[in-house]
C-alpha cells in the first residue's frame, strides 16, 4: 500500500501526530484523511488477523475510522493514538465475530484428540516438504479458533512484532496481561497442533 514517506515521517513524530489529532478533532477533514491514510494499514492488518478475510477486514476498517473520527472528543491523548484506534478496531472485530456466531471457539480436548487420531499417519510422521504447508493451514484454522483477545495479542506481538506496551495499549490491559495472552495463545496452539509440530525425527526443517 502506498504510504508517502513524508506523511509517515510526520505521523511518526508524536507532537505532529498530536497536532493532527487536534486538528481532526476541530473538524479539519484533511487532517482526518491523513490519519486514515497513516493508520489504515495497521488497523486493517489487525482486523484481518481477527476476522480472517479481506472483505470483512476492509469493512471493519472503514467502520473503525468512522467511529474513531466521529468520537475524537472521547480521545484523551493519555495513550498512543494508534492504541486507541486499535482498541476500537478490536471491539468492532469482536462484535463482528459475535454477530457471526463465530466468536471464540470452544474447543474440547476430546475433539482435539479425535482430530489427532484422525490425522493421517503421514502427517504424524513428521511433515516434510509440502507438509509444512499443511502445518500452516492447520495453524490458520487454529488461529481462528483462538479467543479474540488471545488472537489479537498474538497477532500484534508475534506476527506484527509490536512491543508489549503497544499490545497492552491496544488491548486495554496491562503489559503483563498482554504477555499472558501471548503465552496462553502459544500453549493452546501448541496443544492443538502437536501432531504437526513434533517432527524432530524428520530433521531440521529450515
Amino acid at each position, binding site marked *: *500500500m*502506498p504510504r508517502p514517506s513524508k506523511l509517515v515521517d510526520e505521523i511518526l513524530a508524536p507532537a505532529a501526530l498530536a497536532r493532527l489529532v487536534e486538528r481532526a478533532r476541530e473538524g479539519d*477533514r484533511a487532517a*482526518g*484523511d491523513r490519519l*486514515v*491514510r497513516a493508520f*489504515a*494499514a495497521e488497523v*486493517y*492488518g489487525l482486523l484481518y*488477523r481477527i*476476522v480472517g*478475510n*479481506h*472483505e470483512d*477486514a*476492509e469493512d*471493519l*476498517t*472503514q*467502520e473503525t*475510522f*468512522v*467511529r474513531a*473520527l*466521529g*468520537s475524537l472528543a*472521547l480521545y484523551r491523548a493519555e495513550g498512543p493514538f494508534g492504541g486507541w484506534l486499535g482498541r476500537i478496531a478490536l471491539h468492532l472485530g469482536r462484535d463482528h465475530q459475535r*454477530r*457471526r*456466531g463465530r466468536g471464540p471457539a470452544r474447543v474440547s480436548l476430546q475433539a482435539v484428540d479425535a482430530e489427532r487420531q484422525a490425522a*493421517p499417519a503421514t*502427517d504424524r510422521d513428521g511433515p516434510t516438504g*509440502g507438509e*509444512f504447508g*499443511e*502445518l*500452516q*493451514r492447520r*495453524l*490458520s484454522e487454529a*488461529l481462528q479458533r483462538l479467543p479474540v483477545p488471545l488472537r489479537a495479542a498474538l497477532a500484534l*506481538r*508475534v*506476527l506484527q*512484532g509490536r512491543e508489549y506496551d503497544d499490545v497492552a495499549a491496544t488491548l486495554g490491559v496491562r503489559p503483563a496481561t498482554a*504477555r499472558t495472552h*501471548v503465552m496462553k495463545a*502459544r500453549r493452546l*496452539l*501448541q496443544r492443538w*497442533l*502437536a501432531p504437526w*509440530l*513434533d*517432527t*524432530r525425527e524428520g530433521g531440521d*526443517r*529450515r
Partner: protein
Amino acid sequence: MNAATRRRLERTFDGSATIEDLLQLERDAAADPAVAAALHATRRLAEACGALPEPPIERLDVEHLVASVRRELGASPTEADSQRGVHGRPSKAPQVPHSWLLSGTLLQRSWGVRGRRDGSWILWRRLQGVRRGVGASVRGGRVDRAPLPKQQQRRRAITLVSVAAAACVIAVVGVRTHTQRVGDGAQHPRPAFGDSAVGSASRSAVAFGNRSAEDLTSGAAVGSESSGGQMSVRSEEPLAADGDARILTAFDVVLPTVPLDVAARARALAVFVDELAVQSGGGAFDVTGVDGAAEFARCVEDAFHARISGDWPLAGFALELLGSSDPEGRRAAEAARYLGVRSDALTPSRLARALDGAPARNVFGAPSGEAVAHTLRLAAAQALVELGAYDELARGFEVLCASGAWDRLVGTWDLEARHRHLDAIARALPSDWRPASAASARGLVTLGRVGADRLAQLVLSLTASRSFARSAALPLGSRELLGVLRGSPFAREAVEDLVRAEQRPDSLRVAQLCELIVATEATGAIDWLDARIRRRDPVALEALVALPGTTPIAALLQLEGEGYVRDDGPWLRLLAVDHARVATHLARAMRSDVAEARSLVERFVALGRPELAPALACAVAARELDAATRERAALALAELPRDEAGGARATSTPGSDDSLRAGVVATLDAALVEAWLTDGDGPVAALVVALEAWATAEQLTECLTRLDPRVAERLQAAAQLAAGRPGAGTLSRQARVQRTLATTRVVAGSNGRGTRGTNLR
C-alpha cells in the same frame, strides 16, 4: 522443566529472547529431552507463524477508504436513520451538566457562600438545615447551628425549590435543544459513537458497487421487523416500476438494520427478487421454508429462470450475500456447484468467464463490488474443479492468483485433494505461461513449476518486489528459496532485494534472511546485519561472522563494550569459523589502535583457547605492543592445551596441523631474534618457553643457534632439562613454565652478553 526454562521458551516464541536465553536453552535441551522437544515445537510453531501469509494490504484501497470515511462522517446520521426507520437517539448533551452547574452556582450565590473553598460543605449543611428547620451561619470557618425564624425558613425553602425547578427546566430544555441540533445535523454532523448502522450501511454501499448511501436511499422508505428469528419485510411505498435501484436501496436499508443469518438474508433476497420477478412479468415463487444454502441457491435459480435466466451478475450478487456470512466460501461454493449442476447457464465456459471478472455490473446496474467479484471467482473456481474443467481453470490462473482467490481455493482442499488438483492444474497450464504478478508467481511456486533463474528474475523484476518478499518468497523458507536460487547469477541481488524489502522482520525471518545472506555472500546486506546486531540479534551476529570480507571482531568488541557479551560463546564460535581472521584483525588493530590490540590480547590470554595460537604468536611478534604484554602472550601461548602425551605437541587441538604449528614456530623464531636484540630477559625467556612448547627439538636448537651459537647449547639443555626433569610430567603447566623460565634466566645470565644489567645479557 523448571519455570525459568518455560519463561525462556515463551521469550523464544515472542521474539524477546536474549542470546543468554538461547544459549541456556540449548544447554538445557542437550541435557533434558523434554526441553529439547518443547524447544523444537516452539521454534517450529514460531516458524509456521512467521510463514503465515501477510494481510493482503495491497488489496486495501486506501483512497476509497478515505473517501468512504469522509462520506460517512459528512452524512447526517439522523437523516440516514430516519430513512431506515430508526429514530435518532437523544444525546446526553453537555447542556445537562451545564444546567446543573448553573443551578448550583445560583444556589450558592443565593446563600452568599460563593467563592468559599468550603462552600460545598457549607451548602450541604445549609440544605440540611433547611430540611430540619435549622439555620447555619458561618463565622471564621466554623458553622454555628441555630434555629431560624419561621419566616426565614420559609423564604429559604422557597428559594431552594425555585432554584431546583429552574435547574430542571434548564436541563430539559438543554436536552431538547441538543436533540434538535443533532437532528438538524447543524452542530454535530458526525455520527454518534456507537452508531453501527452507519458503518453497516456503508458496507452495503461498498458491496453494492461503491454507491453512496445518499444515492441509494433516495426514494424508498422501508421498515423492517424482526422477531424470533423470523423476518418480514414491508414496504411503506410500493416499489416503482423503475425500481432496480430502489430494490437495491431497500436492501441497503433493511439488511444492515437487522442482524441476519444466512437464512434471513435468503428470505430477504427472495422477497426482493420475487418483487423484481413480479414487476418484470415473470412468475413469483414461494419464499416460505427457505433455509440454508441449497434453498437459497434454488431461490436464486428460480429467479434466474423467472426473470433473468443465466444472468451471472445476479448469481454473483446472491453469492456475495452468502459469502458475506461465510468467509470460507464453502457455502457459496456449494451454491455455485448447485447452480452449476442444475442450471444449463453455468457451463465451464461461463464459469471461466466468471474467473475473468466478467460481471462488471450487477443486475441492478451498479458496478459489481470487489467482494462480489472475489466471491464469484472463488465459487466459479470451485465449480470448475468440481466439474474437472482444469483447462478453463488454468486459463484463469493469473486472475485467480492476483485476486487472492487461489489461496482460499487451495486452502479448501485436504492433502490428498490438493495433490490431485494441483497436479492436474499444473499439467493444464501452458508451458510458456509466465506470471505477471507476485501473486501469480507465488501460485506458480505452489504448483512447483519454477526454476532458480526464473524465481531470481521474478524477485528482481517484479515491481512489487516488496510485496513479493512478504507474500511469496519468505513463506517458502530459506532452504526452499536457496534451493531454487542456488546457481543463479541473480541470487545475490535477489537476496539483497529481499533484505531491503523487509521492514520489520520477526526473529524467524531474520534467521531466514541471515541464512540467505551467508549462502549467497550478499555483502550488500552488511548494513542490515549491523543494524540487527545493534538490536542484539545473535543470529545476525552469527551471519556477520560467517560472511566473507567482514570484520566481525569489531562487532564483538562493540558488543563487549556495551556489556552485552558476557560469556565467551560468540568468541568461540567466531574462532571456530575462521581463527586465521582473528590474527589478521589483530594485526590490523595493532596498526590502527594499540589500545584496542592490547585489550584484544588480554582477552585472548584470558580465553586460553588452542584456536588462538596464531593470534597469540602474532601478538608475541608485534613490536607495537609493550614488552609485558608480549611476554604474557608468549606464556599464554606456551600454556595452550596440548595432548597429555607431552611428546607430540598440540596434536589434538584444532591448531595442531603441521602448517599451523610451523607458522607459529616461524613467528616465534623471528620474534625471538628481535627480543634477543632489544628486549629484556622477560620476553626472551617467555619466548623460549613458548618455543619449547611448540617447536620440535631440532627447531628449538636451530632457533637458539641463530641467537648465539655459544649459548644455544646451554639454552637448549636448560629447556630440555626443564621439560625432562624428573617429576616434570606431574607438574602443572604453569609450574613448568615458571621452572623453565627460571632455568633459562640462569643459563642465559652466564652468556656474557649483558648490556642492561639483566640476567640474559
